[in-house]
């Protein structure tokens, strides 16, 4: 009954025509995340120029939700600042963990609002978050490696 609300057209479109898929160089950090319950895997790279995200490239295998989510992540965050990207990520995580009771803000989330229906299926939330958690991990590594030593 809720299949269409879960699998919004935007999600199916990103699943069938993923944006920015494939691993590219150069990159500042690379991570590999798995979903141990289903075996889905994602390798993700982040490239920064100062505090601007110049690329998020990724490859992996998994269900439509996890793959579409990584594609939306790429589309939403590339070109944004790290701060904006992290704020979008926080909003997305809040939406996903809201059990369907959080009102999504399209201005912050863009196409990622399409995943609102996923929040009603707790077993699928991890799928939707796989790429975003990988990105958060990668960007924190990239920022850490770029931060200059603080002068004494």
């Amino acid at each position, binding site marked *: *009954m809720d*299949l269409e609300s879960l699998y919004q057209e935007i999600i*199916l479109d990103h699943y069938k025509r993923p944006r920015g898929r494939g691993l590219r160089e150069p990159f500042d950090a690379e991570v590999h995340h798995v979903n141990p319950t289903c*075996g889905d895997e994602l390798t993700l790279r982040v490239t920064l120029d100062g505090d601007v995200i110049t690329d998020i490239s990724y490859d992996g295998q998994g*269900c*439509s939700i996890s793959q579409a989510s990584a594609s939306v992540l790429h589309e939403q965050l590339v070109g944004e600042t790290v701060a904006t990207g992290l704020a979008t990520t926080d909003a997305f995580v809040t939406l996903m963990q809201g059990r369907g009771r959080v009102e999504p803000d399209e201005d912050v989330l863009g196409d990622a609002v399409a995943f609102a229906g996923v929040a009603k299926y707790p077993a699928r939330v991890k*799928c939707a978050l796989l790429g975003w958690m990988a990105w958060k991990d990668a960007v924190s590594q990239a920022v850490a490696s770029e931060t200059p030593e603080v002068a004494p």
Partner: protein
Amino acid sequence: MTAVHAPVSGLLDVERVAADFPILSRTVRGGNRLVYLDSGATSQKPVSVLDAERDFYTRHNAAVHRGAHLLAEEATDAYEAARATIAALIGAETRELVFTKNATEALNLVSYAFSNATAKAQHGRPLPSGAERFVLRPGDEIVVTEMEHHANLVPWQEVCDKTGAVLRWIGIDDQGRLDLDHPEHGLHAVLGERTRVVALAHQSNVLGTVTPVRVVADAAHAVGALVVVDACQSVPHMPIDVADLGADYIAFSGHKMLGPSGIGVLWGRYDLLEAMPPFLTGGSMIEVVRMEGSTFAPPPQRFEAGVPMAAQAVGLGAAVDYLQALTSADGSLSGLAAVAAHEHALTAYALGSLAEMPGVRLIGPADTTSRGAAVSFVVEGIHAHDVGQVLDDRGVEVRVGHHCAWPLHRRLGVAASTRATFYVYNGLRDVDDLVAGVRHAQSFFGVA
């Protein structure tokens, strides 16, 4: 669109059986009939099991094997009577049956006998007579198979890491059967004089493959190894006699055979149980306790530390009674033989139906020879999670993912699969609903 089926021999009277399971009368996801095809993960419970647990708590509840009051006596009797009932089901002596939290704990209990005996021997600490059998030396070998559930793989990896033993495994062929004659990964290629343990599933939880335990056990015994069988997917589904099976230990879980969760069973040859150091320690598993050290009770109490799960044992006893009272619709078979025949008929029908579907690839044996009622498949172009989601939307509940058998999926080149498992309350109509659901998934995702 309900298909009308000609009578199929061997089936149980499914409507009558299903009426014993209250949960099966509920609806799911917007009023759909519940089509429960995930009994391989856990089975549903008949009302007689629920009543048995409730009766225990409402009339007899006390901590078993402690206290001398009336309730303690009654509770202990109920707990031990359940042990006898379950032992009789598998042709075992009552004292050979150890209750555990689940099958995973039962398998760990055996694996820890090896690492604990090895650690104690290294420090010259006391061990039961005969415990040398459990002391491992670097280079000793433990053999598993490539189709194991993680519960019969990871504990042995841990034993290897703790003792310096080496893990080896028997491979599988493309049909999902043990490749016993393979020159590198076959039975005789991996067994040797250093083999100390051979651990294998009796029936694959993914593929349904029933393994030739007797053949493996005889070869293992010929080189002096002990044989540990994960019987989680066999004891609930077919008649088992431990003497015929040829294993030294079998482990199974209560919740997969109509019993409550929170109880598993380890059966072991008594002389071996006697030679094993304890696993979990504490109250009621002791003989004498002094500040300087302790001695331990004989099995099975040695392996049942703390207040045990009495109500769950009673519930499992009731589940065994229920299974043994089942009869085929035509009256030809009873008990686990009737269960096996029923599942055989369902599996044949499911394999036939799925094999005809374009874009559906079965993994595991394509025919019902030596094969149980776990039917796993891949739908081309649709991830198993998405197949499962569409099925769930129609009330068909299956398992998706790697089913705790990740190396097996890797070997088969499959990231994740969809698995339907059948039990006593499933009928041909459930298979039809599964097939219709898969077809719907294909049209929803535009792959057919």
